[in-house]
């Protein structure tokens, strides 16, 4: 039996992450990165009570898990393949483990934090 590539698995995660990042990240970056720190429209947009209630709800936890984990898989898959195009060839298998390892560890940590929050 020919050795089959495991690339489709990572490409599927990359594709799913690409969809989620495209639809959700711009608005989310505006909220957490710009509006909340600048106190717009009012301070307390991301108060501890509000965010912990959101993270402890099932829809909120599912949203955060999907956004964080799939964005990680999307981002690190693309970073890994771009390194090849920048001429980085030596030690690429180590880079691959680091990239997908970070995405996997991030996914596990996100799941752990959310499950303990519920």
């Amino acid at each position, binding site marked *: 039996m020919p050795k089959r590539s495991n690339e489709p698995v990572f490409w599927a995660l990359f594709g799913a992450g690409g969809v989620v990042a495209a639809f959700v990240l711009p608005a989310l970056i505006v909220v*957490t990165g710009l509006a909340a720190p600048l106190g717009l429209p009012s301070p307390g947009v991301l108060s501890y009570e509000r965010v912990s209630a959101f993270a402890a709800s099932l829809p909120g936890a599912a949203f955060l898990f999907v956004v964080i984990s799939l964005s990680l898989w999307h981002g690190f898959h693309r970073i890994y393949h771009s390194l090849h195009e920048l001429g980085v060839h030596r030690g690429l298998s180590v880079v691959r483990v680091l990239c997908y390892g970070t995405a996997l560890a991030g996914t596990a940590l996100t799941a752990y934090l959310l499950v303990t929050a519920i």
Partner: protein
Amino acid sequence: MAVRRPYVRPMAGWWRRNPFYIFYMLREATSVFVALYALQLLYGLYTLAVGEAAFDAWLVSLRHPLFLVFHGVALAAALLHAFTWFNVAPKAMPVLYLGSHRVADRTLVWAQYLIFAVISVAILGVVLGG
């Protein structure tokens, strides 16, 4: 006897020679900001689990000018990612039929922009308005 030395076209900096490839690499570079922002969110989630003091300290750290600049650039990167992603989606997905009529690529791209607008307004409205 001289050793044959075939010409090998140098590849260093290949993408900087053509505007099309510069844009291609710019598109790929959005992934760095997608990954960094996801890690930033994960860190915020971690401080949330630690407790209120840690979470508030994270919120204060986001006010640093460097973080504001980072999030400004991340927003531009996320928008470029969204724009390019929606545009290539019809090429990456199976051909869609409504009855016997093939749905045009342009329709699929505009449908995604519409969904994007609805989701963005919903997120901004719920968080910033409520």
